[in-house]
């Protein structure tokens, strides 16, 4: 489960072969799980679609939620999975409500969210609502903290979240169905079916979930029941369809669709009147890709995607506000293997944005371009280097050249142990969003892109025991520092309208430590994951008109965050898991006096598999917030007390 660290170290000496395979390292989920569970990498015979940018992300850290971790959240959202499993901060306006991410002390607009290589942040806001992303349709969730502009484009200042859902070849027909119910009107149902032949793979998933979220807002008082949270119910659905078809020699066609919808009441703040807020969000994402490998030295990919978002929000005091966003994107990548040590990828991206919103004067149309080059040099069997570059072209803005340099060096290597040192430096950028430029009133067409320059360095210790007691232990320590300049802040400007301005310089720095331990015996398997993040984020410098204080911790950035999780399987049919997450206090404003207290959340599950013929039944009881902690991740928005969910899953083959 877990959050594991996957780095891109590859088997020395297998360069040439690895290039074709690794680029695609398709079975990404599988590979990640393998890393975690201590199995040796077994690279599939046929490469898969989708570039694997992590191959060029040497020296950085990667957190992977593999299929084992995701299996705890089959009907959940990315917000729930990341909050419990990764030392990131998610600001959640209530269960199932808007959830925005903060990686390494930056804000939500500083995280690029990529689905199969395409940025799916709302183009209006430049950020994503992690409550809208269901886990079920994605076979892998990977988080790369730190700047990665060269690899991931605009917005990858604090980090990038990479989602992918490639169906596996082979294996024939499989399916599963799951139903669950729980406290506060929680209910969910999901279906998954996949088919894998030698040259064709199909996968379909569908999910529906809902909750009333009418949880009590406090303990009983004088024998009277506490008031219950009003207006926080939601319904949500998710559908994915993925297809891969191998064509001719070395060719592959991929098609993918991801549809999400949510109809949410907007949970009022504690003490606020219930204004009966209602929000609906619908997104459709379609993708087609073709990849062709020519011999061992070249591989080319063309991908096109169409993304469509429609958001409607209103309440008693606001007539429904409509936002319709449409983005058409195309990408091409060309990878070359030069000699035995160098791999080079050249590519480009074209994006066309269209947006109609109540806040815009007219339909907005905008085109953006980017070109990039990625270079990896495996200098020696123990030293790997990368140098990447991206230049974007955005109307009326001049995003800077975004270079990245990274290195990994295996300092010490034995049969079972490896110590790898790693380092990277990167410049990243965030082009101004449509709202920041076109919102009326206040939009500022003259806004400069934000730029981030960051450095990180660390070490990874990996121990893989030989013999029958299969033990895999991996520990990683990373230190980083980043300066984000031209940080955008909305302040009252000319004419009195709130207007975004490039106001400040922000420095974030910190330490990240994580460790993963997997132990396999014939009748017992155990996994333990622990992670810790120390995050300091300060405004270093302001400009005229920016009255917020310097050198205080930014709002909603906890200084300390930690997660601990453990999973056990006994006799292959009993399951036991527990996970805890801790956050220290968070200031709720820039002035660093109002704060939300620190909290520790515990969740756990007990389950039983039962196999009947080709069907496997899994009964799982999951408990959340077991210590019944009253906490908030965003000021004034209540989170649920202790709750439980019972689920039954039937998997065929």
């Amino acid at each position, binding site marked *: 489960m877990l959050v594991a660290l996957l780095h891109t170290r590859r088997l020395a000496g297998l360069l040439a072969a690895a290039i074709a395979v690794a680029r695609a390292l398709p079975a990404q989920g599988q590979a990640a799980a393998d890393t975690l569970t201590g199995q040796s990498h077994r690279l599939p015979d046929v490469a898969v679609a989708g570039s694997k940018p992590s191959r060029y992300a040497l020296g950085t850290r990667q957190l992977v939620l593999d299929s084992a971790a995701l299996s705890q959240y089959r009907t959940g959202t990315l917000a729930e999975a990341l909050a419990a499993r990764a030392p990131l901060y998610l600001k959640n306006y209530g269960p199932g409500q808007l959830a925005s991410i903060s990686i390494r002390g930056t804000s939500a607009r500083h995280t690029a969210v990529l689905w199969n290589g395409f940025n799916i942040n709302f183009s209006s806001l430049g950020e994503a609502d992690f409550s809208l992303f269901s886990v079920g349709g994605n076979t892998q969730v990977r988080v790369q903290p730190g700047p990665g502009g060269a690899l991931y484009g605009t917005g990858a200042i604090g980090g990038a979240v990479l989602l992918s859902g490639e169906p596996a070849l082979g294996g024939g027909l499989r399916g599963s169905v799951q139903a669950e119910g729980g406290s506060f009107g929680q209910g969910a149902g999901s279906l998954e079916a996949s088919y894998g032949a030698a040259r064709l793979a199909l996968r379909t998933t569908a999910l529906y979930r809902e909750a009333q979220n009418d949880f009590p807002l406090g303990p009983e008082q004088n024998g009277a029941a506490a008031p219950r949270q009003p207006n926080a119910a939601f319904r949500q659905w998710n559908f994915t369809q993925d297809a891969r078809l191998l064509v001719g020699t070395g060719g592959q066609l991929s098609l993918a669709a991801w549809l999400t919808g949510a109809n949410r009441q907007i949970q009022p703040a504690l003490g606020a009147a219930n204004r009966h807020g209602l929000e609906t969000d619908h997104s459709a994402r379609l993708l087609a890709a073709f990849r062709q490998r020519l011999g061992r030295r070249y591989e080319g990919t063309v991908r096109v995607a169409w993304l469509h978002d429609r958001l409607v929000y209103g309440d008693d*005091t606001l007539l429904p506000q409509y936002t319709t966003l449409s983005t058409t994107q195309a990408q091409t990548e060309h990878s070359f293997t030069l000699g035995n040590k160098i791999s080079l990828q050249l590519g480009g991206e074209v994006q066309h944005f269209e947006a109609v919103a109540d806040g815009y004067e007219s339909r907005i149309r905008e085109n953006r371009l980017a070109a990039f080059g990625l270079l990896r040099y495996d200098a020696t069997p123990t030293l790997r280097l990368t140098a990447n570059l991206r230049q974007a072209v955005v109307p009326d803005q001049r995003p800077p050249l975004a270079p990245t340099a990274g290195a990994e060096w295996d300092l010490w290597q034995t049969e079972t142990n490896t110590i790898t040192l790693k380092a990277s430096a990167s410049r990243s950028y965030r082009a101004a969003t449509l709202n920041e430029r076109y919102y009326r009133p206040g939009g500022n067409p003259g806004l400069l892109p934000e730029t981030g320059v960051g450095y990180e360095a660390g070490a990874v210790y990996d121990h893989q025991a030989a013999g029958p007691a299969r033990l895999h232990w991996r520990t990683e320590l990373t230190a980083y520092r980043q300066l984000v300049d031209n940080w955008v802040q909305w302040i009252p400007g000319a004419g*009195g309208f709130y207007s975004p301005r490039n106001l400040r310089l922000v420095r974030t720095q910190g330490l990240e430590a994580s460790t993963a331990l997997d132990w396999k015996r014939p009748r017992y398997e155990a996994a333990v994951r622990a992670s810790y993040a120390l995050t300091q984020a300060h405004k270093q410098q302001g400009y005229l008109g920016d009255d917020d204080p310097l050198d205080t911790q930014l709002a909603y950035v906890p200084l300390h965050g930690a997660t601990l999780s453990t999973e056990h399987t006994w006799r292959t049919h009993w399951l036991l898991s527990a996970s805890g997450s801790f956050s220290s206090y968070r200031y709720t*404003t820039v*002035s660093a006096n109002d704060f939300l207290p620190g909290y520790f959340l515990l969740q756990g599950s007990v389950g039983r598999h039962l196999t009947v013929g080709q069907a496997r039944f899994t009964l799982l009881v999951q408990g959340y917030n077991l210590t019944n902690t009253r906490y908030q991740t965003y000021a*004034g928005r209540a989170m649920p007390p202790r709750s439980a969910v019972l689920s039954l899953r039937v998997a065929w083959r």
Partner: protein
Amino acid sequence: MKRNSFPYLSAAGLLALLTTACNPDKEVISPEVPTVTNAVYVVNEGTSNGAISLYNKSTKTVVRDVYAPANGNKRLGPYVQNMTIVGDNAYLVVNGADSVQVVRLADFKRTVGIGGFSQPRYLLAAGTAKAYVTEWQGSFPAYSAGRVAVLNLTTNTIGKRLTVGVNPEQMLLVDNKLYVPNSNGNTITVINTTTDAVESSIDVPDGPKNLVRDVNGNIWVLCSKYGAAQDFLVRFSPAQPTQQTRIALASDYTNGNLRTNTTGSTIYVSLGTGTYALDPQATALTAKPLIRRNFYGLGIDPQDNTIYAGTSTFTGDAKVIRYTVAGAPIDSFGVAVGPNAFLFR
């Protein structure tokens, strides 16, 4: 309303102190009695939760929030738009909670919460037994006609409700007439407070939102409408409301904070171009502002006309800067988020 009712209220409070058994007439104004103020209440709208800061003039210390500690750390609620002192109580209009919270001024403990309002904005007391509360109705951007709720301060219940124009804002009481500016329109509704009936309507430029009365008895109106080509300061005599002097201003969303000193001999207004002090006879803005800065909240200490000015970006706690009557900065102190008004005691 805070500043309008101020002189009346502080004088009434003083009288109550001096003559314990007396139930002062609401129209008693005694400018000859020197006003001494010790405490300054600062109304902080807040984002998710409002707060009332208390500044001690003699020690120059400030308590960032007096409400939460006095009430078991309960939240006051979002958007505290207005505070009015009536006798020993303060009435806090919490816009985001659709309620008015009543606290004892002595310890700031909440005694009662009055719900059932629709987007309440400002409260104005007429004596100690009755108050008026402006309410907005409908939804942005298509608001419907607002209301003025008549609040019984003895029973803390809402009585009659009078329909006025769209988005009624900060009222002014002159004799037995209540002037209600309808900020999303171009009228001022006049209510007879003896009968609590709408009496007439006065046409003004778009966006009337603030009213004060000057030393000559004239009523000043700040008209500022979002997106209007021009904003105005309008002055008229209650006897001849159609005969108006209009001072044109550059349109600016931040135009606001129309205030006077105790006697009404100086009119203050904080515009996008700065904060101005005007004579009651002014027909144009002064060439230069008194303070080259716009403020979110403005208050004039009735004791010595010291200017209290609140800044805010709503991203964090704000600062209050004090200025002399000549506009020279004195000092500053920190308060909570979004200080929009000051009450002096």
